[in-house]
């Protein structure tokens, strides 16, 4: 069974774009997809004739439940003028568009296509919080997990209690992740939350003052995050600011055969590693302080790429909840098991730290339209590698970068490694 996966042909990323993330009652998912497509198109430095696109792979978790709309892929193809090309919807819960990317890569590497559009789309804000909670729950085991009363924040909260018990971590480490990702999101014009935790806190104080109400006195952000009224408990130990929001958004990526990249782009990004694995339901796992599928997917990707975790200059990881980012940084080999929370507390994952993680603001601050998140992670890597990340641009050149996209409670994980030559 020893498989050493490799690509049969080099694959390059030559354009990437995303819609603004947020809650947009006035826009349908197709409108958001057009927004992402147009930004992608503009990013192709030597120009793209959309007629050169041969197929679409569209990540979408559940437009059926969120919008009452099935069969999304041909609809998205139509709205960007690409019918009658084959259009394929890819569903692996919150990893849908990370897996769509992998399918696009496989399609080009096989020689079937030269130019492929990879997309991600989700519009979640039509439903109430309770209905969104129910819709997301269908990504777990509806026969044996949901009747117990689990919710998605609940699953990750359970991982957090296992992690806290094993490594003597405290919720303050999770809060550090939230603060860091909000700091990054504040510098990302596409982010749902373009405010640091300090901005949020001061905004609440200003509004209280304007209304003549008592002004809440928090000594600092940590004090604010410990306040049950300002930061209510969702699933202990995870509070509101530990959870990614309910979001609408889309992302689009253009992949081409490596030998064609220079026709499209002055500075292409090569995809040198791809890995994916699956796992059983949470209660069927040996331990809950790591996501096994992430460990396996990253090992495959590192092996294919011929790089090690130390080579990765920036990573976008799946921080659907703050604990998930800490576990991700361990599963990816950036830090030893039990060291991820210490690294977060010491600021090692900030933009100026040893290992910047989620410079986009992550799912936490940028937003988490679930089927679009995996592709949107790649948009940030593209921008960092092109020097287009604006105020959040890393000082050092990014030669090697990584994305880590998780579906459900970790039943799916897909990891990609990117190189700028």
């Amino acid at each position, binding site marked *: 069974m020893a498989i050493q996966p490799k690509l049969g042909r080099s694959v390059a990323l030559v354009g990437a774009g995303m819609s603004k993330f947020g809650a947009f009652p006035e826009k349908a998912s197709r409108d958001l997809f057009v927004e992402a497509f147009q930004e992608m198109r503009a990013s192709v430095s030597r120009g793209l004739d959309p007629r050169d696109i041969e197929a679409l792979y569209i990540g979408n978790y559940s437009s059926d439940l969120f919008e009452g709309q099935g069969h999304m892929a041909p609809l998205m193809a139509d709205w960007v003028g690409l019918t009658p090309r084959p259009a394929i919807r890819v569903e692996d819960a919150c990893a849908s568009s990370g897996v769509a990317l992998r399918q696009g890569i496989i399609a080009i590497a096989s020689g079937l296509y030269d130019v492929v559009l990879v997309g991600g789309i989700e519009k979640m804000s039509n439903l109430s919080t*309770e209905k969104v909670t129910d819709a997301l729950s269908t990504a777990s085991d509806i026969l044996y997990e949901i009747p117990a009363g689990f919710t998605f924040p609940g699953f990750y909260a359970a991982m957090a209690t296992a992690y806290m018990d094993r490594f003597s971590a405290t919720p303050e480490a999770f809060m550090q992740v939230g603060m860091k990702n909000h700091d990054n999101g504040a510098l990302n014009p596409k982010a749902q939350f373009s405010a640091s935790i300090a901005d949020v806190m001061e905004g609440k104080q200003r509004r209280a003052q304007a209304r003549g109400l008592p002004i809440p006195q928090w000594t600092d952000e940590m004090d604010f995050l410990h306040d049950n009224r300002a930061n209510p408990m969702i699933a202990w130990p995870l509070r509101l600011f530990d959870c990614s929001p309910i979001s609408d958004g889309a992302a689009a990526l253009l992949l081409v055969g490596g030998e064609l990249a220079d026709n499209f782009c002055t500075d292409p990004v090569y995809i040198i590693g791809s890995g994916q694995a699956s796992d059983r339901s949470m209660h069927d796992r040996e331990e809950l302080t790591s996501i096994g599928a992430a460990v396996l997917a990253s090992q495959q990707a590192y092996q294919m790429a011929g790089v090690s975790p130390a080579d990765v200059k920036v990573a976008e990881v799946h921080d659907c909840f703050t604990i998930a980012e800490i576990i991700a940084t361990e599963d990816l080999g950036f830090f030893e098991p039990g060291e991820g929370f210490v690294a977060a507390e010491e600021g090692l994952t900030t933009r100026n730290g040893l290992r910047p993680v989620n410079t986009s603001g992550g799912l936490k601050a940028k937003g988490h339209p679930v089927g679009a998140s995996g592709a949107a992670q790649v948009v940030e890597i593209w921008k960092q590698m092109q020097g287009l990340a604006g105020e959040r641009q890393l000082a050092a050149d990014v030669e090697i970068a990584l994305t880590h996209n998780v579906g459900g409670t970790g039943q799916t994980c897909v990891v990609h490694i990117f190189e700028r030559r």
Partner: protein
Amino acid sequence: MNQQPFTESTFQSYLARHKLMASRCSACGALHLPPRPLCPDCFGDDLHWTEVSGSGKLLAFTVIHIAPTAMIEAGYGRDKPYVVAVVVLDEGPGISAQLLGVDAANPQTIAVGMPLRATFVERGEGEGQRTFLAFQPAD
């Protein structure tokens, strides 16, 4: 009794009789809870039902404040949070269930590793009545 199919439906009918039943693979001896019609360890399909003790320990837990609609209908929610857990049974398999008899308002009093025993909760009425697996502290 061993002729019953190894499905959630059969599992549920045992739960209604307050029995916690697992499937055991006759070929490799692996025990599976939830029960399965195919052994994922050896691919064997010669299985039999086995009752498990219901004794186990707490692997992980949380206190749910923002509840799904089914639990809101059962009377839980922001004003009445509840505890859910992943429990590892003494026989080996793990299972998800509600955790009763602990203080949801003081989660720091709930300890990973604490010994638990299975219990059964009835919800709904008439046709809608259903038995749910739960756990509580062993002592």
